[in-house]
């Protein structure tokens, strides 16, 4: 900072203080508070990287409009330095080093995907830089004893657990034993999806179900017809697919093309891949796991209700007009909110104090409750399962949140 601007900002700060306006100051008078993020703007995770970045930017704008972040008697606005990690882990780690060393960033927002978070978390941990991340769900992130990593989302094994429970329920209704349910699992070979698989297989084991297909999708996925052929032969009762946006799009497209007929299909990333917009009726009756739904009754002071978040976000980003706002965006906004809350409670820019404040977070937000475990993951918020019913996403499980009945069995469209 140049001396002149430093003096100017001191003076303006003093002036504000004197007039006692600090708390209601126009946010544009606030000083920038710098955050850093390496995010996938190109490469295989680009779709979701951009969803997350929009979520960050939207929250920053909202906080700005509401008067900025008040730390002690000064107000600040978040200012994020972004780099494109090209969806590659080694690049993400390099950029994190660069943000910390060259750009002197003291606080980080997370990248997109568990894989990238895994590559970056050791770097932030090494430099003791607090990172609040919103897009890394794999449990393998939270068994390393990291002290500076916090995740606002639920861990991946919970994504499709209720689909397994639903399949068991349906089997019982039909007078069959849940252990007779056959499951087919096709997941991408990356930390996030492998943890989805682990969660599904753990739950299936509880019911004594058998995984008749258990395959990994290659990273550069373009064709999963080999797996779907087996699905046709083995006729599982539940098909699980997880592979970020590309996996979701490929699965729904080929399920339609090959006329796959499985009573229950559960996938991740439906909204992010916009499967209803792209594939229309083909997507009907598919179950989609979600971290957040705009129909849920969460709310907070900044964003209002979940539904309000969606409306305001769509008016700020018209390109989401006829799509669902993906939960990837909502949780990114929630991560920024956690930072703002922690800074205000810490009342200082001291890194350690801010870390402790984040660790002590206990927040009700439009995205759900946020409270971190010792390991840094959010343990206060459940996952929900939605079904695409005539092009609309309706919550069907868990029963506490369900607004609609499950359509079962699914018919090939």
């Amino acid at each position, binding site marked *: 900072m140049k001396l002149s601007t430093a003096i100017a900002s001191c003076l303006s700060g003093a002036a504000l203080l004197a007039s006692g306006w600090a708390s209601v100051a126009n946010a544009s008078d606030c000083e920038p508070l710098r955050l850093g993020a390496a995010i996938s703007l190109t490469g295989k995770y680009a779709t979701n990287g951009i969803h997350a970045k929009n979520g960050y930017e939207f929250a920053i704008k909202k906080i700005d409009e509401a008067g900025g972040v008040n730390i002690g008697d000064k107000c600040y606005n978040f200012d994020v330095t972004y780099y494109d990690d090209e969806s590659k882990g080694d690049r993400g780690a390099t950029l994190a080093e660069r943000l910390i060393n060259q750009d002197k960033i003291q606080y980080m927002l997370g990248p997109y995907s568990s894989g990238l978070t895994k590559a970056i978390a*050791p770097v932030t941990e090494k*430099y003791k830089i607090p990172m609040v991340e919103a897009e890394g769900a794999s*449990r393998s992130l*939270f068994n390393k004893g990291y002290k500076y990593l916090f995740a606002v989302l639920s861990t991946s094994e919970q994504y499709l657990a209720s689909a397994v429970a639903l399949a068991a329920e349906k089997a019982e209704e039909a007078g069959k034993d849940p252990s007779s349910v056959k499951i087919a699992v096709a997941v991408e*070979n990356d930390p996030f999806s492998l943890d989805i698989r682990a969660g599904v297989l753990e739950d299936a084991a509880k019911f004594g179900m058998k995984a008749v297909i258990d395959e990994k999708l290659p990273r550069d996925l373009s064709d999963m017809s080999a797996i779907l052929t087996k699905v046709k032969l083995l006729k599982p009762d539940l098909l699980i697919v997880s592979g970020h946006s590309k996996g979701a799009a490929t699965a729904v497209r080929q399920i339609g093309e090959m006329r796959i007929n499985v009573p229950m299909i559960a996938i991740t990333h439906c909204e992010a891949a916009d499967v209803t917009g792209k594939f229309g009726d083909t997507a009907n009756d598919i179950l989609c796991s979600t971290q957040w739904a705009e129909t849920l009754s969460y709310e907070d002071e900044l964003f209002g209700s979940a539904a309000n978040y969606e409306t305001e976000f769509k008016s700020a980003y018209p390109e989401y007009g006829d799509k669902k706002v993906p939960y990837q965006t909502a949780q990114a906004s929630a991560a920024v909110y956690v930072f703002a809350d922690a800074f205000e409670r810490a009342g200082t820019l001291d890194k350690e104090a801010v870390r402790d404040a984040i660790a002590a977070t206990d927040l009700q937000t439009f995205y759900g409750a946020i409270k971190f475990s010792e390991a840094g993951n959010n343990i206060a918020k459940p996952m929900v399962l939605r079904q695409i019913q005539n092009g609309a996403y309706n919550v069907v499980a868990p029963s506490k949140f369900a607004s609609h009945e499950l359509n079962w069995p699914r018919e090939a469209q």
Partner: protein
Amino acid sequence: MTALRYLLYAVLLVITVLAPFIFPDFRTQLATLWLMIIVALTWDMTGGQMGYNSLGNIFFYGTGMYVAAVIAIGLVYDVGVYTSASGGGINEFTPVQYFAGIGLGMLGAGLFCAACAIVIGYITFGLRGPYFAIGTLGVAIAAGELVSNWDWVGGGQGITLPVYPADLDEGKLFFYYVFAIIGVVLFIFLKWLYSTRFGAAINAIRDDEEKAEAMGIHTMRYKLTAWALAAFFVGLVGAISAFQLISFEPLETAYQTINLGIFMVVCVLLGGKGTLWGPVVGAILFHLFKEITWNYLLGWQWVALGALIVVTVVYFQDGLMGWLMHRKPGWFGIRIDEGSDGARK
């Protein structure tokens, strides 16, 4: 002349020791520079000195990483549980466990890679020229793909090792000096090795393998020994890289065929094949080029790199040292009798 030479070596050694203090902000980059020097020197053992251009030396780097990580984790935890997607409790390492892991991991990685080189070499050394290059490249790609499907070592999610247990700056110095020591030892070792009968034998293999065989040189034994030595050192630096990077995964970090796997070849070509200083100079030039393009040409860095490879192999195949040797043969103790003393210094 020799006194001058010793002085030069002494100055270089002092620079090596002091470098992280002269450029404290670039400690990680300097450690990476040593990594490049080491892999370039080892590539030149077979590529430059013996005439076997491997594109698969990265196999030993990746394998070194995995072997070291498995040893370090295996000392304390069940590897399969530690690397599983579901996690299984919080896994922490005490400093003693950490350093024991590094030490044993490096040793294990080096030895395992040397053994691999003998087994793989026994098959691939039957291939010549471009087939050897393609075959070894195939081995490296296949290894990466297979490891990425191997659940016990984490499959596609890779492995995350513990963070350096003490102070951050101390950690950076630690990794720098480990790389630097391996590099210096390797350089001295190679300087000695190339002056022995062994060096003459592998050069003979490069120049004409059939004649060398006919002269009674047991070529296969020499080829395997040379590759095993190279693999040992690459395994060592792979192991230490694993701890430095902390988190790595099979396809893009460990068996990074199109990154480091090719970079090492380009370093050698840039500096000059078949010379001792060539790989060192080439690695320094290449590393500078890479750091500069990666920082100032974001997005275009790969295009610049491709262009560098093309230009190097097409126009400067003898590399910087080759060019110097051609222009100033006296510096290298080569005497050309041209009837005048012009060529002598």
